[in-house]
């Protein structure tokens, strides 16, 4: 086969060019340390590299967010520790004030200390990081607790910020102050005395606001002079009393006053007066307000003032005038979690019916309202109480009814907070001796509630910090794995690269050398 100079030149040049192209590529790989400098170098690896880099960017951002969240949460925790200490000390002070041994000057001192504890709590409640307030919910640009008309008010909201710790991991960071520093749940105190009427079935234990009466004996002398001793031993209900009086063998009969609040003795005899007196060493007649002589033919006893009970019918209330059932709308919630229900109580007969219906109330989404109808302590009334802390409780009549108004529970109430609690405790201590309205006593219970709230908020923070730590640890592991993968995909193996370059250079030089030697000679060099 003919071999022409152009063929040889072409082959040699082709080989040399290929050799130098290879060297150029190897040089690029070694100098940059990367074997993928553009997608076309290795499209599959390039996709992997871009995906890895993207995830690394994301992981770095998540780590940043976690770190920022942890800083905020540790400041919150510190504030809550201060709050806890303040509340514990406040409880000690209140105990001291409540046990009655402190004199006026000492009470003043205790009140002063309560004021300063209140101040500490205020500082804790207004904790901030770089000018961002942590207990104001979403309103982070101004201090949530501020002085307004002599009281400390809350101007935050009920939201809370979440941090994105990973694609699917959202962790709460802040909590609204209202759910941390609240005390007693919201309560709507109703009419103090709904004045249920006494009926024959009223148990003696219910009388005198539940104080109860245990009766002994009384002697009746009617106007005709007939005498009877009534023994109330074993009597259970008011009806029993009436029956025993009526069975005493005198002309005096017992009944209930029309207003249903006392026992009325009526003398059927012809004489001018009749007498009732304590007998047998007891004070039964006095207790019933029936000790004495009447020349009017009848005698009314004391107001028996029964306490309110579940079995009382609505008709018995207001001294027998009764309260008409109706429709109530009740809402109990926060701005973040509103729950409202409309209760049709028109079918309720007894107070117990009302209580049951209210306790079972659920809102439109089936969530329990968390409200109960409770009896007020020391009164014969009811109160609407929220079972959930930090809420606003509102009740009102619907469609022109009057049930709520009559029960005295129409209105709105916020849960109390520690600031107003400490304020009222301090005021009570300053006011004078004793604790006439039981403020200090109730305050002790409220302080326990407040401590619970603070502790559970702290616990919540602890749980969330743990979660963030676990996520962070997982992210760090992932980061290492991705960086290793990235290295595999794009980095040059230096030893391999240098070896390849050496071999390629050798081939290149060989090609150059040989090319030089065979391009030259032809037959012409050997002809004479």
């Amino acid at each position: 086969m003919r071999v022409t100079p152009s063929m040889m030149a072409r082959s040699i040049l082709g080989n040399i060019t290929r050799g130098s192209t290879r060297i150029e590529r190897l040089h690029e790989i070694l100098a940059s340390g990367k074997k993928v400098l553009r997608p076309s170098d290795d499209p599959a690896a390039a996709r992997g590299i871009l995906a890895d880099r993207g995830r690394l960017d994301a992981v770095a951002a998540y780590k940043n967010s976690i770190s920022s969240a942890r800083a905020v949460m540790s400041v919150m925790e510190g504030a809550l520790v201060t709050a806890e200490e303040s509340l514990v000390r406040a409880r000690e002070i209140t105990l001291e004030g409540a046990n009655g041994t402190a004199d006026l000057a000492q009470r003043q001192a205790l009140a002063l200390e309560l004021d300063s504890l209140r101040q500490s709590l205020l500082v804790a409640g207004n904790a901030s990081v770089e000018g961002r307030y942590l207990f104001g919910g979403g309103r982070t640009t101004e201090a949530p607790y501020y002085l307004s008309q002599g009281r400390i008010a809350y101007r935050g909201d009920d939201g809370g910020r979440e941090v994105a710790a990973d694609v699917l991991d959202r962790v709460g960071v802040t909590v609204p102050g209202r759910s941390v520093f609240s005390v007693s749940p919201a309560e709507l105190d109703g009419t103090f005395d709904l004045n249920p009427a006494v009926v024959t079935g009223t148990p003696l234990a219910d009388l005198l606001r539940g104080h109860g009466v245990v009766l002994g004996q009384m002697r009746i002398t009617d106007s005709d002079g007939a005498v009877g001793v009534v023994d109330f031993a074993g009597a259970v209900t008011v009806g029993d009393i009436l029956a025993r009086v009526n069975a005493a063998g005198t002309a005096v009969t017992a009944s209930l006053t029309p207003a249903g609040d006392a026992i009325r003795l009526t003398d059927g005899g012809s004489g001018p007066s009749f007498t009732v007196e304590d007998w047998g060493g007891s004070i039964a007649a006095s207790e019933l307000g029936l000790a004495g002589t009447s020349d009017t033919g009848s005698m009314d006893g004391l107001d028996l003032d029964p306490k309110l009970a579940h079995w009382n019918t609505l008709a018995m209330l207001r001294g027998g005038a009764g309260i008409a059932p109706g429709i109530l709308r009740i809402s109990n919630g926060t701005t973040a979690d509103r729950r409202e229900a409309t209760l049709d109580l028109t079918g309720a007969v007894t107070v117990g019916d009302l209580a049951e219906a209210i306790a079972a109330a659920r809102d439109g989404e089936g969530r329990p309202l968390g409200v109960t109808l409770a009896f007020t302590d020391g009164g014969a009334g009811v109160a609407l109480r929220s079972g959930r802390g930090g809420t606003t409780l509102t009740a009102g009549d619907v469609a022109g009814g009057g049930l709520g108004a009559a029960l005295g529970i129409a209105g709105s109430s916020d849960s109390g907070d520690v600031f107003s609690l400490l304020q009222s405790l301090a005021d009570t201590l300053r006011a004078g001796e004793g604790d006439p309205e039981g403020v200090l006593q109730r305050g002790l219970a409220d302080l326990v509630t407040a401590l619970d709230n603070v502790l559970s908020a702290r616990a919540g923070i602890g749980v969330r910090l743990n979660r963030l730590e676990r996520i962070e640890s997982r992210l760090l592991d992932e980061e290492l794995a991705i960086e290793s993968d990235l290295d595999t995909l794009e980095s040059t193996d230096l030893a391999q690269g240098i070896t390849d370059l050496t071999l390629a250079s050798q081939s290149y030089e060989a090609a150059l050398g040989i090319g030089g030697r065979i391009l030259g000679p032809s037959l012409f060099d050997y002809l004479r």
Partner: protein
Amino acid sequence: MSGLTGILALARRALQAQQLGLSVTGNNIANVNTPGYTRQDLLLVSDAVRIPGVGGLGTGVSLGGIQRSRDAFADAELRRENHVLGYWTARNQFLKRVEALNNEVLAEGLTQALSDFLTSWQELSDTPEDRLARVNVVEQGESLAAAVAGTAEELRRAERTADETIEAHLTTLNATAERIASLNARIVARSGDSPHLQDERDRLIEEITLLADATVTFQPNGGATVRIGGMVLVDGPASFRLEMQQGSEPGSAARGPVWRHNGATARIAGGQIGGLIAVRDESLAGLRRDLDRFAFALAQEVNRIHRAGTDLDGRQGGDFFLLPAGADELEPAGSAAALRLAPELLENPSRLAAGTGGAPGDNRTALAVAGLRTASLESLGRASLGSFWTATSGRLGSQVREAGDRQVEHGLAVEQLLNLRDSLSGVSLDEEAAKLVAYEQAYAAAARVANVADEMAQTLLSEL
């Protein structure tokens, strides 16, 4: 004629022949490096007359003609391989440039800009009331929009460059076709027998095949007919021109090559022109479509989230990105080039919505936008923004790689075919050297014969 006269004539013819042989050999040697030169061989035949009583008597050598050694099959193979090589070469060169303009692997491309943008939202979610964080988000958004618009502009420029290059190639093609036509005329006038004109014509035809997938048929009269995509480019002395048809609106992309004489679309599927057309209509157009889809989806999603959010003062958020009017999900064309940030955000970063409830510390909108990093979008075929663009640039990388591999592959094939052609039609100096020696010796020998015949004649004359 016989006798001494005959011998002298024989010697004279031999001298002529060997001299001619030397001439032809010399011509070959002179043209050893001439591109496209076909080796010429002198054909010699021996003569004879019949002498009664003696039989056939050779009367020397006569000229059989000059042969041009060309293999039509090898030529045709080479032409075909040429235009395939041209196609992949053009593709490779052009796509490599496009890839270099937006090299995602170097972390300067859209992927990184998008990641930085989303990271800025994540940072905002940590401190939504912070003004600096807002300014950062706005700035990153502006960067991203600029990167998108910039890439769209680069693609547009690449398309225009492709058009310009095609146009330049068409001009070259037309000029070459004209020269072939005039060569045809001259070759036909010489009854198809003029080696150097034929060499020149073959060389020009090969040049054309690098540019386009042309086919050649040789007519009996010696003319060559060149066709591209079924239409005649050159036929005998006539040649036709191709030109670039401009787009319908000024400034819009050109449509493609057409035949000037009848306006028909030229079907050029190979060669450098074919490669550039494919790059422009498939690769670049595909990239532009993907970029528009990306830009539209980005703007649509961010705007949707942003409009539902509230800014630092509790006001409802507006659009974050602005898109051209008329762009929608099915027809997002133009979204990328026109993408920019809503101006009121640039003036007043506190209008940026980070939350949804109106409170300054609410970060739910920021969290939602940051979540776009992994959210799969229906409008992008369930891919996330980042993975969609990564796939696009991966496809471009694959195309570049393929073009490069094919270019090497077909370059080798062309090399081999050229070598084959050379071995059939080229000049080997060794061979020519040997022929020189042969012709020289033959010339000397023929001269000797003439000398001897001359001496014999002298002897005869001196005896008379």
